[in-house]
C-alpha cells in the first residue's frame, strides 16, 4: 500500500485516496471540431505506460482535493504531488 503525500494533508495511506487515471487529458475546447477518431482518442484511449506515469489522485477520505502524482508503474516509486490550476497549499496549513 502506497504512502502518498497529499499536498494539503501530508503523507497518508493509499486507502484514503481515489484514483483518477492518467493526468493531463485535457477536454478539447471545441469537441465538434474533432473527427470521430480524435474524439474517441480523448474519451477512450489512455497510454498504458511501463515506467514513469503522471496520474491524478483525489484525497477522497481526507481533504477532497485532486492532485497529480508521478508514479513508476513497475516499481511503484512515486514522487512529490503536483496541484491543479495553480492553487497552492498554504505554507503552513
Amino acid at each position: 500500500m502506497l504512502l502518498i503525500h497529499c499536498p494539503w494533508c501530508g503523507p497518508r495511506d493509499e486507502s484514503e485516496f481515489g484514483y483518477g487515471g492518467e493526468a493531463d487529458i485535457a477536454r478539447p475546447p471545441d469537441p465538434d471540431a474533432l473527427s470521430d477518431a480524435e474524439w474517441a482518442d480523448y474519451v477512450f484511449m489512455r497510454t498504458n505506460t511501463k515506467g514513469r506515469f503522471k496520474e491524478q489522485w483525489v484525497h477522497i477520505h481526507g481533504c477532497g482535493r485532486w492532485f497529480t502524482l508521478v508514479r513508476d508503474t513497475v516499481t511503484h516509486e512515486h514522487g512529490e504531488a503536483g496541484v491543479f490550476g495553480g492553487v497552492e497549499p498554504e505554507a503552513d496549513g
Partner: protein
Amino acid sequence: MSGPQYRLPAHALTGGRIDRDRPLGFSFNGERFTGYAGDTLASALLAYGSFPLARGFKYHRPRGIFGTGAEEPNALVQLETGGRSQPNLRATQIELYGGLTASSVNAWPSVEFDLMRVNDWLSPIFPSGFYYKTFMGAGIGAGRWWRLFEPFIRRAAGFGRAPAAPDPDRYERMNAHCDVLVVGGGPAGLSAALAAANRGSRVILADEQAEPGGDLLAGDRSIDDAPAMDWVAAALGKLDAAPDVTVLRRTAVAGLYDDNFATAVESVGERFGPGAPEHLPRLRLWRIRARRIVLATGAHERPYAFANNDTPGVMLGNAIRHYAGRYAVAPGRQAVLGTNNDSAYRTALLLAQAGLAVTLADARETPPAALADAARNAGVAVEAGCVVSAVVGGRRVRGAKVGRVLPDGEISGAPRAVEADLVGVSGGWNPALHLASHRGAKPVWNEAQACFAPADLTALGVGAAGAAAGAEILADCLEQGYAAGRDAARAAGRTKRTRKPALKTDDGAAGAPIRPLWAVAERRSGGIGGKAFVDLQNDVTVKDVALAARENYRSVEHLKRYTTLGMGTDQGKTANVTGLALMGMETGRPPDAVGTTTFRPPYTPVPFGALAGRDRGALFDPVRETPMFDWHEANGAVFEDVGQWKRPYAYRRGGEALEAAIDREVRAVRNAAGVMDASTLGKIDLKGPDVVTLLNRVYTNDWETLKVGRARYGLMCHEDGMIFDDGVTARLADDHYLMTTTTGNAATVLGWLEMWLQTEWPELRVFATSVTEAYATATVAGPEARRLVSGLDSDIDWSDEAFPHMAVRTGTVLGAPARVFRVSFSGEASWEINVPAHCGPALWQALIDGGATPYGTEAMHVLRAEKGFIIVGQETDGTVTPHDLGMGWAVSKRKDFIGKRSYKRPDTARPDRKHLVGLLPLDSSTVLPEGGQIVNDPAQEPPVTMLGHVTSSYKSPSLDGGFALALLKNGRNRMGDTVHVLRLDEGADPARVVAPAFYDRDGGRMRG
C-alpha cells in the same frame, strides 16, 4: 498410547523452557495426552514418540512431525471443533493450552487406517501429471471421467475442512507507525531493535514465537560466558522498558508491501483456546507503516533427500536440537544425523548429553577438526564422508543406512545398516527471504553457501541481518543485527550516537564450508529402493523432478505446476531450493538459472477472521437511517437496502400480504394522498456566480433560462454520452442552487462535479456541498395532497397559481424553515417538503395525522413506471443515451456539454439502437420477469437473436394487469408488434410493444 516416555528429565542443558509445574491435558484424534505450559502441540505429542499423525497428500504414507516452526510440511491439524474450528494449522506453531482438541487433516477414514494408502502401492501408475494426463487429456470422454472422479480425487487429496458454523470469536485490527520495524526476535533481531532503540527510534519488534530468542531458545548457546537466554532476557527487559519500543510477541509478519507497509497477525486470545478471557480478541491484525525495516527472519534448515525420508522419526536436524533443548523432548534412543555442514554438531552434542546414542554422518571428507573432536569426546560416532542413504521402517523409523558418498554424489558400495529410531537431516540453510521477495526482489544465489540470499533492498529502506542475510555464526548475527538497526535508525532520521556493545560468543574455532548435497539414493543409486521426497507436503519425489526434466518442464514455473512442488500451505519452505537444485543438476544448470521462487504474501496462512476484523455482521457496512426511521419501524415497514440506506419498501397493515400492501399504497396515491420518505435523495448545495455554467456543462439540457423559484429535471452523462445520473435542480437565488441526485449516486455525483471543478475548470467559482443528511424530506402526492398540505401550519401559498408544477418555494412549515419542491415522480400533483433533519418526525406525523397514507419504494416504482419515468440503473446500465430513452427533449442542441460530441459517433447515432418501450403482456395477468430477454421467435434455433430485455415490470392496480418497460432494439419503430419475453426458467410470454407511458399521458394530473 503409552506415556510421555521421550520427555527428558530436568537438568542443566535439556531442562527446557517448559513449566513442569503446569501440566496441561489435551486431546488429539480422540486420544488423551498431557503436556506442559510452554509446549507446542508438536512438542507435547513428540514426548510420546514419533508416531504418524498425518498422511501424505498423494500416496497417503504415514507422516510425523518434521520441523519446529513455520516450515513444517507434515503436521497439519484441524484445531478445535464447531464454528471455532481452524483447518491446516501447523502443530509446531500451536501453543498448548489445557483442553486443546485437535485432529489430523489428511487421512480418510483415519490416520491409523488410511484407505488411500493404496495410492502408494499403485504409485507406478501415479507419476506427476497423472490426473491431468488421464482425466483431462484429449482422449474421448476424458472430461466426463474427470467429472466422475473429481469429487473422489478431491476428497482423497483434501486438507482440513472450513468450519460450517459462524465463527464465535472476535478479531481486531490495529494501525501503527514506527521508525524501524524489526521482523524476528532472534539474536540479530534483538540486537537490531536495541541498536535502533538506543538511538531514540520508535521501534516495533515483531516475533512470531511464544517467546523471543530465535535459535537461542535451544538453550545450548552462551553470550559473555553466561547462558544466551540471559542476554535475551536482559535485551527484552531493556526493550520492554523503553517508552518508544513495542515488542509484539506471537506476531507473525505476513506481508510486506509498498512504501514499507507491513501486515502482521498477533495471536492474542488464541493461545488460551475456547476458554480465552472474554475481553481478548482471538487474533489482532497489525497494519504497520515503518520508515525502515530490518528483516531478521532467520533461516530454514533444508533436508537432503534419501529413500523413505518421509518416515515418522525423520526430522530436520536443528528441529531435533530445539525439541531437546527448548521442550526437553528427544523422540528416540538411537539417533542418526546426516549433515553436510557444521550446524548438526550442536544437535549431536545436545542429544549425546541427553543420553542418546548418536551417529553423525558428515558428507564432508574432512569435517572441521575442532567440531569433530568435541563430538567424539562426547561419545558421538562421527563418520566422515558419509550420508544417510535410506531409512528402514514404515510407520516409524526402525533403522537407517549410512554409506560413503563419492565426490560425484554416488554412494560407494553397499551402505551399512545402523540401528536408529530417530533420524535428523541437515542439508544446509535457506535464508527466510520471503518478505524481501514480497517487495519484488529476486534472490541472489550464493555459491559458497549453496543458498539464495535476499537481494540488497537498501534503496527501498529494507535491510536484512543475521541468518536471513546468510550469517552462519552467532557473532555475525549479533554484529549484523546491530549494524542494521543502527543504519535503519540513522536513515529514519535518528542521529543520536551510541556505542556498539562488545559481546563474546561461543562460536569457537572456525568451521568448514558446506558440501552442497541435494539427494542421494533414488536419483543415481538405483537399487536402494524407496521413495525419496523433495516436497513432503505435496508428495513430490526426486523421481518426479527428473520426470519433469525429461518431459521438458524445466523452468521453475513449469516445474511447480507440473509436479506441484512448492504449493500447499507451506509453500515449499523446506522444498523449493532443493527442487531447483535437482532440476539444475538434471539439466546442467546452476539453481538460479532454473529460476527463483517468487514468494507472495502471506508468509504463513492468515485466517479470514483476522482480515475481516470487526467488519462483519451488522458492522460489515454502515447503515444509514432517515430521521423518520423509528416511525417506519413502528408502523409495519418492510425495509430494503438502497446503497447504505434503509428505505421502507412497503408498510404492512395487520396481517396484510406484501403485495396487498403495495396495491393499497398505489391506490391511495392515485385516489387520495400518499406520503413517502424521500430523505435519502442526494442533495448538493451549489453556490457561486458560475453555477449555471457548471450546470450547463454537466447536464444535457439548458439551464440559462431557469428562473429563481423554479426547478428543472436534468440528465447527466459521461463523455461517452451514456446516462449516469438524473435529478431535479432548483434555483433558490441568483447564485444558489440545490441539486438532487439519485439515492445511490449522491457521493458519486458530488465527486464528479468536484473532479471537473478542480482538474478541468478551476476558473469556475462554485462551491459544491453535500447536504443530504441535513434535511428530512416528505413527498406528499395525490389528488388530495393539496388539501392536505394546505392544512399544515405554514406561510406558503399552496395554490396552483402561486405554486405551480416545477416551482420551488421557501417558507416555514410547522414553524420550521422549509424548502418545498413541486415536482412529481408519481404522476400526481406532488410536493417535496424539506425541513431540517430533526424536524422530520414532526412533519411526518402531521402529514399522517392529516390523512396521508405512507407509501414505500415499491409503490413509488409502480407509480413512476406507469408514467414511464425512468430509474437510473434500472432503465439504464451505462450503455443508454437520452435519445435511447426517447428523452431527446432534454438534450440541448445549442450548447456543449459532457458527452454531447459522442452523439455524433456512428454507433450512438444509429436509428436502430435499443429504445425504451412499454410492453403489455397479451395475457394481462402475466407479470413479465425483470431482466427477461426479448426475442421475436422463441422457437428459433439457437443462437436465438436477442433484441433487448425487460427493465421494469409490475402489476398495476390502475391498469388492472401486468405492464413493463423494456429496452428493445429499434423499439420505437415497432409499436404494436408482438414480441416474446423469455421466462427465467422455461417458455416465453408474448407481449405487445407500446409507448412507454401507461397512465395520464398528457400529465394533466400532476399539473392539476
